[in-house]
């Protein structure tokens, strides 16, 4: 399936190659570079590129292109999903997935890639299994290894690989048994100029951090499961029980994982936490423009809106911005043409405002469309959909675990058209 993998940085440097079948010359990447050139923005590179003898399927993540070479028919999503899984594994192992980190850990990266695919077909992708095969690097371990000469590589087949629950390793032991669940909801919305909602929906995930000994069997139930419109689960969740009882029953993987994600569709009314009053205009003469943005709370359920950030992708002709913010700081990057206004906490008594003038390239026609605003925000202790976890029960083990649930609401793709 996947023949080879090339990692290419944003500058077009090919810094890692790995082949699972016979070696394919790196010149195949020229087709990719061609497409990259044509696309201008890295985001616009088509994910599937056809070359005379091969097909290149690529993803762009953390400023790195993961370019895989395919020779025969294969579901493209299969490859794309797998490439993302590779990136996530790197992230999991090294804390981040960047060019320098990959170069610094090239041996572990290679060992990982070797384990993850055999002959181009995925072999082990569960992080629990991989970590038993190849231990992630820590400072302590690398010191011990240099002294004792022991290695990072496991000698036996991870227990998970053979069991029907490959995501959990056997013999987990903790002195403190604890389970934390984060209900994170993101609002995807498009608001039009007048502030009415064109489209809004809620995407939620439940992230879990379970550190429990043995083989706990957990059941998580909600006060209002009917809210959930469409769900997808970690493989550990028993789908049948969800279908019949609307509870989430599972044997958790060890450590951090995403238990489920859900979708609350546009049919339900979605509360929009903030409103934006904006006025951006460009003048026909004088190559200048004016900008005035005010953000205020709308439906916040009595909670405070934090980490409020407004991002504006300005038209190409905007050279600089001379603005004044009543709260927070702003920054205009003339190269990427991005105006970033970091507001912070939203104070309902004193609404933050950003006002001032923009200067345009002289002689250029004025932009006909006003740039849209992207809003980023965070509200602690609130799931905007109203979803509530009822209880968490444990079976199969004797001890009493410590349990905790946290709710956060964030803005997802929250866009205000102007």
């Amino acid at each position: 399936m996947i023949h080879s993998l090339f990692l290419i940085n944003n500058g077009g440097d090919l810094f890692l190659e790995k082949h699972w079948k016979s070696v394919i010359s790196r010149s195949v990447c020229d087709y990719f570079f061609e497409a990259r050139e044509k696309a201008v923005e890295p985001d616009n590179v088509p994910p599937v590129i056809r070359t005379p003898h091969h097909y290149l399927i690529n993803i762009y993540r953390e400023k790195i292109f993961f370019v895989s070479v395919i020779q025969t028919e294969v579901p493209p999503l299969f490859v794309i999903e797998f490439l993302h899984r590779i990136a996530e594994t790197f992230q999991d192992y090294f804390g981040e997935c960047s060019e320098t980190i990959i170069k610094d850990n090239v041996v572990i990266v290679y060992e990982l890639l070797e384990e993850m695919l055999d002959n181009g077909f995925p072999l082990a992708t569960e992080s629990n299994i991989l970590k038993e095969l190849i231990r992630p690097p820590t400072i302590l371990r690398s010191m011990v290894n240099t002294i004792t000469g022991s290695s990072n590589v496991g000698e036996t087949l991870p227990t998970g690989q053979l069991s029907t629950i490959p995501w959990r390793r056997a013999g987990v032991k903790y002195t403190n048994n604890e389970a934390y669940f984060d209900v994170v909801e993101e609002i995807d919305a498009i608001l039009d100029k007048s502030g009415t909602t064109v489209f809004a929906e809620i995407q939620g995930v439940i992230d879990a951090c379970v550190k429990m000994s043995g083989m706990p069997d957990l059941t998580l139930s909600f006060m209002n499961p009917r809210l959930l419109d469409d769900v997808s689960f970690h493989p550990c969740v028993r789908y049948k029980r969800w279908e019949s009882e609307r509870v989430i029953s599972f044997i958790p993987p060890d450590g951090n994982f995403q238990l489920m994600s859900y979708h609350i569709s546009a049919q339900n009314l979605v509360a929009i936490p903030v409103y934006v009053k904006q006025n951006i205009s460009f003048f026909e003469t004088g190559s200048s423009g004016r900008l005035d943005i005010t953000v205020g709370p709308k439906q916040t359920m009595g909670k405070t809106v934090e980490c409020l950030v407004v991002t504006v992708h300005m038209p190409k002709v905007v050279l600089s911005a001379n603005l004044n913010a009543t709260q927070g700081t702003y920054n205009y990057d003339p190269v990427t043409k991005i105006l970033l206004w970091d507001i912070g906490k939203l104070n309902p008594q004193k609404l933050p405002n950003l006002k001032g003038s923009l200067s345009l390239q002289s002689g250029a026609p004025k932009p006909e469309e006003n740039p849209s605003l992207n809003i980023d925000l965070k509200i602690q202790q609130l799931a905007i959909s109203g979803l509530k976890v009822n209880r968490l029960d444990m079976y199969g083990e004797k001890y009493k675990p410590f349990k905790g649930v946290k709710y956060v609401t964030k803005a997802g793709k929250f866009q205000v058209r102007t």
Partner: protein
Amino acid sequence: MLGMSANSVSYNEQGSVESGVDAAQENSNISGGGGGGAAFSLFSADCKKNEDLKEMLENNKESLKLEAMKRIVGLIAKGKNASELFPAVVKNVASKNIELKKLVYVYLVRYAEEQQDLALLSISTFQRALKDPNQLIRASALRVLSSIRVPIIVPIMMLAIKESSTDLSPYVRKTAAHAIQKLYSLDPDQKEHLIEVIEKLLKDKSTLVAGSVVMAFEEVCPDRIDLIHKNYRKLCNMLVDVEEWGQVVIIHMLTRYARTQFVSPWGEDAVFDENNEKTFYDSEEERRADESKPYVMDPDHRLLLRNTKPLLQSRNTAVVMAVSQLYWHLAPKHEISIVTKSLVRLLRSHREVQYVVLQNIATMSIQRKGMFEPFMKSFYVRSTDATHIKTLKLEILTNLANEANISTILREFQTYVKSQDKAFAAATIQAIGRCATDISEVTDTCLNGLVLLLSNRDETVVAESVVVIKKLLQTQPSQHSDIIKHMAKLFDNITVPMARASILWLMGEYCEHVPKIAPDVLRKMAKTFTSEEDIVKLQIVNLAAKLYLTNSKQTKLLTQYILNLGKYDQNYDIRDRTRFIRQLIVPNEKSGALSKYARRILMAPKPAPVLQSAFKDRDRYQLGTLSHSLNSYATGYLELSNWPPVAPDQSVRNVEVVEPVTEALASALGKSKHAKSDEKFYSGSEEEEEEEEEEGSSSEDSSSSSGESESESKSEENSDDSNKSSSSQSEKSSSESDTDKKKTQKNKKLHQQKPASKDRKLKNGKAANDESRSGSESDSESSSSESSSESGSQSELDSNSDSGTDQKRKTKSKPVQSKPVTNAEKKEVSLLDLDDFSPVPVSTPKSSILSPSLLSDLQGLSISSSASALQASSPVFVPETSHELLHRMTGKGLSAQYRFTRQPCIYGNSMVSLQLTLSNNSEQALENIHISEKSSSGQNIHRFSAIERLEPQASATVSMGVDFNDSTQAAHFQLCTKEDEFSVSIQPAVGELLLPITMSEADFTKEQGKLVGMNESSATITTTPENISSQSVNRNVVSAANLGVIPSNQENIHRFAGKTVSSGSLVLVSVAPKDPDALITVNTEKSVIASMLLRQFKTALTNITP
């Protein structure tokens, strides 16, 4: 930044030339240096560096070697050439350090193809590792062996694959499935053999293997659909538990399979739609097949749909897409819409995922608007989307447009037209054009909107508008002379050639509607003709000709002028066109009949162009495939066949449900119990039920669990029912689920009746039997006829064929394990001498490939590394003699013989493995032969799984393991049949309690030095010169005891080494002939064993005459 890093590299490398930087610094250089530095590395620097890498590799210190390998892997990762280090690296292939070994594997796989001769040196190591008790090592050996693309080892690979495909570890079998594809790509001639292996692995019950073997199937023999029949239901049932990547492959394969095996469910839909009078699910190309005959879905077809549905909730986007395409291609039309939500959910995922999913939705939405219409807003474009995502969303929105929602969509489009992304704005204009033609109500609105856009500042937007307007006007020109006039006015400001050409064409085509303006435009064009683009010139000529025909009074001269200009144009197309037009329109003597028709030729009414989606024809490709994504056939694309008009025989899929083959292994490997007890949650299928029953430590437990799962499956059926009735499918569905119910119930009964017997059945690989039996099984048949009271003739036939195949299998698989017996057979397949299995590691045939220095290197390696000293090896000799366990007279017809296989026992490390041959010498069949649980006498016995039925005159071979605890005390146990119990005992010879070991001579002497005094016993025997010849000593010793031969430089001393099975204590034997006597020395901690061994050797070496 880039320049900087490159500089630093070049600096460092030069530094290394001059001063020979030490290892640590070198390393930091490699890992920290930029990737772009490759070009800077000087030749000399490279050589120098590799030189010290070589030194490090040849060093004795593990840590240095590891360091060197890490650096080499760094080189490989950067794509630099490290091939000249091959000899130095390959020596480390047998290293004990697992990380070092893995890195060497990485290296080997990368360069073996280039250095085939040297790569062969490593083969024997892998062959040895294939026998390792550690499954991870076996698996990785097979992985590397099969990844070395050296054609000469094809036979060895074939053998290894065959062996591994019967390995007890599912992980190794999975690896074998991968190896199949590798071998196939290396040597397609092996296809037939590989298909056999695939066939065998397809029967595998492990979820781990399923995905990989189906992958191999797809690659090697996708056309052999007949191999799937028997496994179809099993695959459907296990699908939920297969790992996610396997799921994708299996689902794609099953989609193809189902299209060849079931009849179309879409005929039914026509009926369905009519009943409902709702065109919601209506599709343009409904296939109204046999409406007269009510359609009943094949239960297997339903099974597939039902079992894939939960996977829509998978977190893996590829799985969701695979299920969606399965529903699209296989499900009745009204059920397809259940995939919508999941597909829309995927749109939240990464940009690349969105791209592929949107492409598929675009294709789907052309045929079935209804599916996605409720989710229209999810396709609204954001300014931050990538361009290709935007265009795809636009495409879908256009596909979804209808009378009801067009106003919303148009309002949305208005926003897009203003987008800063001009390519996207242009695409929006085209989309508006499509909406206008598709929905006649809004044609005028759209047209007016487009006309407004003509005054847009952006050229591309205007040009696109003109082109689209032109197309729209063609549909109803008479009413739109205003627009044409407006465009004529704008003409001067438009510079894009395509747009200018379009306007000119419109003028010409509808010159009768704008009689005043058209000649004026022509006049202007005559002035600028020479400076226009080619397409514009062509249209000017065109316009001139048309005007000449309609309004020759005003334009005659103008036309002639333009034709003259065209005559001398640089472009031959234009010259040709001019000549043609002139002949056509200007009457002269020569111009013949054609000019009479000039008007009809030029002014013929032209059909309006059809604006349609680019995704119109994409549905000829299977959704979710690469070909679909590219809109062209990708290599290896497998066409989805059309539904067969008549369903092929359904009974080919009938197969009796059998339980997982890995039962025995799983428990031996200590597969966690809890995993089992949980399984029923994951798939409510029969399989787990069996497992549970079999495991059933207490009968109560098993019954309760089966009860539970029964209720579960019932509830599942209920929900199914309700599902169906809600989808307003009354009669058909209920009858359908009825048959389903019947089936599951029947299956259930089956299990309960013969839970214990399954294992044997499985062992015998009764597929053929099952087929013939269940072939006769009709739906109305009651389960009782399935039970043991089968008709005599049939069962006899079955058993015969069974035992036949059984024996064949045994003889086939056995030799593979016991080397010496089949040495002859081995020799013909292996190109390298496989003597390394016997403990003579450096045998002569090899040296033909080895350079002398390498040879000594290798030798030195094996001596120096003490770790490799205690490598367990395969037995040198396996005695064929079997011992009587139960005589047929005492056993009432059942006789049993046992034999020591001298292999490491698979059931436990401290067990001696035995092979039991059970034969039935009576007139009746014997049932349920097993070893009683209570009877064992202290020893730990791994029982063979019960044999359900042994026909008269038939025999069966089973294997068992006994932990003798390093003593020759007999193991007593009860051998039971259904009626009787027989006490039997196995008395092991002391020689069987050992396992052979290979070690070097030096190690042997060293170890012997440690085991002196109390631990040494010796005896002198008198023997004949024939007996004392080195060959006969070797033979006699290894036949008396399971020991390995140590290669010796001294002529007159023979050394053997082994370890006790249970405790693993070393046993060293040396025989030193001193004519006519011989001194036998045994060194071991186990003094009892030593004295017994000594006695045995004495007899062995004195009594036997050659």
